[in-house]
């Protein structure tokens, strides 16, 4: 009972302290929030890149160009051939008819004129196309697939861009490395900033800390209100940061909205889930409590109190 009421009192005191100097607090909270926002944004991007890799966005695409004037039967025959391969090699495929292909061309600003000329001449040169999204980087099984399909007589040409896929893989790997570096860097900056903000606050309260210590306060008595104070501050900062990260995601997604219509949802960033938000906040709060512990020790040491 005594302990619970002591915790409650510490908590109330912490709230009271935060509202006593709202402007000073705001500055500290904003400082912490900005850094969590940067770190959070890096985390969101990393997480999405990781998903991108997991969803094999970067495995080669195989484009099958069909001969002119193929009928529905021919198309079904090619599809049947594709379906014989198992899902380890083929993720999915998509048929784009010559009409749809021309439509796509008309969407392009620069090609629009040519496309509409072609369309009006009633002689659409765009071939029917089947696009296979593959499910493996294994060039041997992919080559087998290409060979098999090339042999079908309604198929005009088969193209597989292995180089392009490799380039994407390398690029994504490179970006991941940079992001990991940024994560580590901003985590370290966050720890240092939290420690310093808290150390400065302890400096403002060092009289209280020292007097309490001298008249018999235990470590936990001294640290309890300070820890609550830090937890409150950091939680507010973290909530603010999560909101800012979501704004960042929305902003980026608006920028890439045109890309996503071409490549699918893979190019839209996913926001933090509530659980991930709690994880980030929890981690930062633990840093905060640790910082309080170190900062109070530092005050003791600095003032020669045993």
């Amino acid at each position, binding site marked *: 009972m*005594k302990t619970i009421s*002591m915790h409650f009192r510490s908590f109330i005191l912490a709230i009271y302290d935060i509202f006593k100097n709202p402007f000073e607090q705001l500055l500290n909270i904003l400082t912490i929030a900005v850094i969590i926002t940067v770190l959070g944004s890096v985390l969101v991007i990393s997480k999405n890149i990781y998903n991108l890799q997991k969803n094999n966005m970067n495995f080669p695409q195989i484009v099958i160009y069909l001969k002119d004037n193929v009928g529905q039967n021919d198309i079904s025959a090619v599809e049947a051939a594709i379906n014989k391969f198992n899902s380890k090699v083929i993720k999915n495929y998509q048929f784009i008819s010559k009409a749809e292909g021309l439509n796509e061309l008309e969407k392009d600003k620069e090609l629009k004129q040519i496309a509409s000329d072609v369309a009006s001449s009633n002689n659409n040169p765009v071939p029917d196309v089947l696009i296979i999204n593959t499910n493996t980087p294994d060039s041997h099984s992919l080559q087998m697939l290409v060979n098999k399909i090339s042999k079908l007589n309604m198929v005009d040409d088969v193209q597989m861009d292995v180089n392009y896929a490799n380039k994407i893989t390398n690029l994504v790997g490179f970006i991941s490395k940079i992001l990991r570096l940024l994560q580590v860097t901003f985590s370290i900056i966050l720890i240092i900033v939290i420690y310093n903000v808290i150390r400065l606050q302890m400096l403002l309260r060092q*009289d*209280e800390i020292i007097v309490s210590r*001298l*008249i*018999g306060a235990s470590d936990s*008595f001294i640290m309890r209100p300070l820890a609550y104070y830090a937890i409150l501050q950091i939680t507010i900062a973290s909530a603010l940061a999560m909101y800012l990260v979501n704004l960042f995601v929305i902003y980026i997604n608006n920028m890439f909205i045109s890309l996503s219509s071409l490549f699918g949802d893979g190019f839209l960033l996913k926001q933090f889930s509530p659980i991930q938000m709690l994880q980030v906040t929890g981690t930062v709060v633990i840093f905060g409590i640790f910082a309080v512990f170190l900062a109070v020790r530092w005050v003791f040491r600095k003032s020669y*109190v*045993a």
Partner: protein
Amino acid sequence: MIVFDQVYKKYPGNITAVENLSFSIERGELVFLAGHSGAGKSTILKLIAGSLTASDGMIMVNGIDLSKINQNHRTFIRQHIGFIFQDHKILFDRNVFANVRLALDILGYSEKEVKTRVTKAITSVGLEHKINVMPQELSGGEQQRLCIARAVVHRPKILIADEPTANLDRGNALRILELFKMFHKAGVTIIISAHDENILGDYGKRIIRINQGQLGS
């Protein structure tokens, strides 16, 4: 009971503040610790309260050997001593009441008990009309009374006062000493340091004289 047995205290830089010092103080006694500035009075009082540790020798407080206890135990001992600091250590960001209550908050007293005990302690030193005043608005003598109230509010068995009469005129100093007499009558062991012996003469109590960290005459 407080016993010093061949105690030494060296500060960093090879400064010897206390040298081969032995004395004992009975339970319920009121003693003065007299000596010129720099004699080692504050050092001795901090050694008794456990906020400093001896370099050599043995210090016993109520049967406990202070050199053999850990941090938690040291904290526990401090909670049972009232200490009036030479530099006051008043918290200027809170009023008289809040300064005094700190000692009870540390011990986890309930809000109701805090209110009655703090009011009682502040009344006992004659500051009841200043209970909600900020320390900046108190005179030197009143600040000293505030320190005494904070030191006695949890009713310690031992009360240590480091130069409580310094910087006070004779009238105020005597009034402060009267307060200590009152606590002494209630059975508290009291140790008071002073560099000016004039004021101690009339009290008929034991005076331990310190000279350069040793017993003097």
